[in-house]
């Protein structure tokens, strides 16, 4: 039962790292087989963007916003873990 706030922070950092290292061409393009592209969803200008396009928007914005802070936070965490284990 050692689910603490610190482990939540660790999990969040790992998740954001995972989102940041997704391969652009394979998963986030329009012409791939999985159909995860964002350009298809523009047709629905009404209230219904759909879950997939919302998810794509979210992933793209997270990747754009968190690129630089992630570098900083990762470096700090690596140094701290090396020093204090």
């Amino acid at each position: 039962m050692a689910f603490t706030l610190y482990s939540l922070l660790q999990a969040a950092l790992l998740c954001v790292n995972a989102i940041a290292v997704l391969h652009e061409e394979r998963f986030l393009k329009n012409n791939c087989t999985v159909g995860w592209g964002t350009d298809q969803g523009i047709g629905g200008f009404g209230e219904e963007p759909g879950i997939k396009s919302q998810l794509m928007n979210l992933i793209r914005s997270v990747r754009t916003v968190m690129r630089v802070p992630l570098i900083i936070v990762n470096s700090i965490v690596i140094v701290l873990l090396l020093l204090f284990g």
Partner: protein
Amino acid sequence: MPALASKRRIPVSHLGMADPHQLFDDTSSAQSQGYGAQRGPSGLGYPTASASPQAAFLADPVSNMAMAYGSSLAAQGKELVDKNIDRFIPVTKLKYYFAVDTLYVGKKLGLLFFPYLHQDWEVQYQQDTPVAPRFDVNAPDLYIPAMAFITYVLVAGLALGTQDRFSPDLLGLQASSALAWLTLEVLAILLSLYLITVNTDLTTIDLVAFLGYKYVGMIGGILMGLLFGKIGYYLVLGWCCMSIFVFMIRTLRLKILAEAAAEGVPVRGARNQLRMYLTMAVAAAQPLLMYWLTFHLVR
């Protein structure tokens, strides 16, 4: 010899009145007999003696200016903090959630344990702003969740203590664990609300308030488990789980499924179906978490 003579000068001056420049009693052993007789009058003489150097300090114009400048700096700093604190912690919004009175708390606790007879779950509005919790029992508040959380941590410590498993850092671990689960729940629900594009007026603080109501049931379960053992624990926890389930569904239905629920029509269509699933998932997560956070406390 000269050192002894200089040390002897001080008790001589204490014979008549207290020395205003000496802040502490000189209790070195060579003068202890001389001091014993004079500690009484010198103690009485100190307040008046210390007032005069302070008065002398204040009358000095330079220090006067320095004090005025310091106090104006402090006032400016306080203003700055007051202006900027609203950006990080919405203090005025938080005050709304703590505007409760005893009657509201009593009615809300009754509602949390027995929501089956309550008919009208709609929050009353007053010129576009929701009414304070003091005037409407349906409004969410943060007083009950905060108090229930603290009580839960204390009751968990009590339960661990009766089983000889207590140590002070376990209290912090319990509190941290419950807070972490709460944060995870809030983040998951916010993510789902974003993905399903629900147009709702459910703010984050509202969500924290609703998710904090389950601590009340958890406290009831643990207390019954302490008094009556596992049977009592399971009975009361089962009852509280059902109550929280119904409470959450009826409250969230009005917030998430706003248009359809207002008429009471059974919802159809993909969008409303997703919203219904979300409401059910949130309500179903409450009993699960209530059990998960308390079962290790009752043996």
